[in-house]
């Protein structure tokens, strides 16, 4: 056997491996989407009458909304007003000013008549020093913590220390919340008292009409980049997360809106400040601790939309965001590597974490290698052009099927895009995103993986416009 033949055999073996790998990714994803569909279909909608009764009930647990703010002078007043105006009988808002260098704190002091309060933190999570705690003289439940800059996770920990409610809701201060968002995400805590965390759907606000910090009219975005992200978010939330939640192996609760049992977070040691994926890391840690202690627990995904976020409209910011998400996933997997394939951690150890390792983390790199090899094989004449075209077509069709499923799932269960034109635009986006955009994301995510392995840290330069949250 000549060296050339050996090379060809190795080439075809690698190519076959990649094809099987990519087919497996897509098949599992399709399986999760189908499971998500059945789980959503079995979910009974809460009638308006019941929701009203719940909103009046004194049995609803108190919730503290934690909103870290860094240089949010432009929007903090409206955001806080919107958070205070949420329909929930017993909630307080805790804004954590994370060492802003602009007028964020002064604007809050002036707008809400804040005074320096003697409120005592009751939690003991380590954080950067707190300079002062403020409360409002008005009859509103608003607390502002002024602390030295330490990042989002550090701010959340400071907020958890100061909060006294049983449940804490971590939000991004630039997210737009649904009026009854808190009720939706608190419901699983009422249904099963072993619930330790819940998250809801984060939706794309680009294109929607926003008034007074609320989305008042839902429209699909006009531009292609955000449309692609709408589909991506739908696919991630309605497909993947519903199914993972059904299997009690949900690993991500979006940093833009997630509710946690305060006691569980305190016992777990709080959000990790040394990773950019603190939301995922916290959820995995909660799984780990509960399973190690053999405690019954649930981490639940709520399919109702809870908040809206503006997604990047240009490639530069999108690339940075995806790079960060990929590094966050890598960090979490490295921190909790001993859970991988470990049956002690149940479905989390033997399915969810390996899924994230092989498909979310390594998947883009493998698929990208496949594309490069196939193109190289074509150019060098190793592969029959017809066969290559066929495989590209199959891959494309699978992608289209997955994206379409997400849009169909949205229309069957949530129906948040009432205009037929919007629905058509989403369907068109579901086809087009598979040609170019998906491949671009693959490159950025591979780059993120390499950066993560090289030990790159940090969030990059923060830009308010276009900063979104992990779907």
């Amino acid at each position: 056997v000549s060296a050339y033949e050996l090379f060809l055999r190795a080439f075809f073996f690698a190519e076959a491996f990649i094809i099987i790998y990519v087919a497996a990714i897509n098949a599992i994803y399709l399986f999760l989407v189908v499971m998500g569909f059945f789980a959503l279909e079995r979910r009974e909608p809460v009638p308006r009458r019941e929701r009203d009764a719940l909103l009046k009930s004194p049995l609803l647990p108190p919730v503290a909304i934690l909103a870290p703010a860094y240089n949010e002078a432009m929007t903090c007043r409206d955001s806080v007003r919107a958070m205070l105006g949420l329909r929930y009988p017993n909630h307080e808002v805790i804004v954590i000013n994370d060492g802003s260098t602009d007028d964020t704190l002064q604007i809050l002091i002036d707008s809400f008549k804040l005074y320096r309060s003697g409120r005592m933190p009751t939690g003991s999570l380590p954080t950067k020093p707190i300079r002062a705690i403020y409360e409002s003289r008005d009859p509103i439940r608003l607390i502002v913590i002024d602390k030295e800059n330490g990042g989002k996770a550090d701010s959340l920990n400071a907020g958890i220390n100061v909060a006294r409610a049983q449940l804490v809701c971590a939000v991004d201060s630039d997210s737009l919340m649904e009026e009854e968002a808190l009720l939706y995400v608190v419901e699983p805590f009422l249904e099963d008292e072993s619930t330790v965390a819940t998250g809801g759907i984060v939706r794309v606000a680009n294109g929607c009409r926003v008034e007074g910090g609320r989305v008042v009219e839902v429209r699909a975005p006009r531009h292609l980049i955000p449309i692609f992200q709408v589909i991506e978010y739908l696919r991630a939330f309605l497909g993947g997360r519903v199914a993972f939640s059904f299997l009690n192996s949900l690993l991500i609760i979006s940093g833009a809106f997630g509710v946690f049992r305060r006691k569980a977070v305190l016992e777990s040691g709080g959000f990790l400040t040394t990773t950019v994926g603190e939301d995922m890391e916290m959820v995995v840690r909660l799984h780990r601790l509960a399973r190690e202690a053999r405690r019954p627990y649930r981490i639940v995904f709520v399919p109702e939309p809870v908040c809206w976020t503006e997604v990047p409209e240009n490639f530069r910011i999108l690339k940075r965001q995806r790079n960060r998400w990929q590094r966050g996933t890598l960090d979490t997997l490295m921190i909790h590597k001993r859970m991988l394939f470990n049956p002690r951690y149940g479905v989390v150890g033997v399915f969810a974490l390996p899924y994230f390792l092989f498909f979310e983390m390594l998947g883009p790199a493998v698929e990208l290698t496949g594309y490069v090899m196939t193109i190289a094989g074509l150019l060098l004449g190793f592969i029959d052009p017809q066969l290559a075209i066929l495989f590209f077509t199959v891959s494309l069709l699978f992608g289209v099927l997955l994206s379409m499923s997400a849009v169909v799932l949205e229309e069957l269960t949530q129906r948040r895009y009432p205009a037929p034109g919007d629905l058509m635009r989403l369907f068109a986006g579901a086809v087009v995103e598979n040609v170019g955009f998906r491949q671009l994301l693959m490159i950025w995510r591979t780059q993120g993986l390499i950066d993560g392995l090289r030990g790159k840290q940090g969030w990059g330069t923060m830009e308010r416009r276009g900063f979104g949250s992990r779907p």
Partner: protein
Amino acid sequence: VKNVRVRVWVGTLAVAMIYVGAIDFVDIVLFSPRFTVRALSLALAFAFVQVVAIVLFVGGLFVRKWIGARRERRSLQLQRQIQEALAGVAIGQDELPRLRSLMERSRRDVEKGIGAAVATLLGDARTRLLTVSSALGIEQPDDRQRLDALFGAAAAGNLRRRAVLVEQLEHHALILAYDQIPRALASDDPSFVTAALDMLRAWKRMLPVPDVEKVLRHPDAAVRIRALQALPYVVNATHSAVFDALHDAHAEVRAAAAVAAGKLRLAELSDALVRALSDPARDVACAAAFALAVLPDGVAKLQQAVSGGNRPAAGAAFEALEKVTLGRMELA
């Protein structure tokens, strides 16, 4: 819940099998005979099934949307007619034939409509509705059965169900306090005990339920916390049980006891609350400080604690004093 899980699994596996089966079938029937390369024929079958699935998805979606809208329109129309007929019954008209014909179209809607009307009407109108209901063969439970069923649903259900039903049950709080609540409190099942306590807490009415104090010695800490939360709404609650709870092994029970002491204005416990200011759990210290703030000599004791050497106790006391001074105790 188990049924739902089974159905989701069965549905998912069925779709997966149909999907794989369809690819195999298309491969065998359509492409294998035409293409000798196995990978090629399989890939074509795969592509074919994808295209069909996409077309079915989109087509099915629009058909479903159209059918759903049509069904909704019909149901609304029917409900309007049922409402009209029931209103006629309520004012003494003979609507039996009309209701019979509506029942042929949707028995469920008529049953639901009558059930809702019976639950909201009183007097002659209600009697007439009950007569028509029995003529139609729809059995309506009497008030006693209805109340038992409601209480049973609230007690056996989760906190969510309880939170929804608690408002309806409040109208019958006194009756329940003499019968169902004591029975639930005596139950061996902690979830029934918790349910009864939740109702007392939610109603916020002073009720004669002496058994709540017994529950304060329940082995389950979660039950003890619920009992302490309900205690302020029980007639003749005594301080000894709260005193014992202030020394409970669980910090959350101690904190709940401090809150109860404040709500019940138990001045006899002020010394115990002062000691609780130094509790290692800060939540307990804060609860004790807020409780002291509403007791007759509590403010003076808080001032002493502020000037004392114990820093956490001073912090808690200072916060409570600040809230009293600013009139923000309600929000604290």
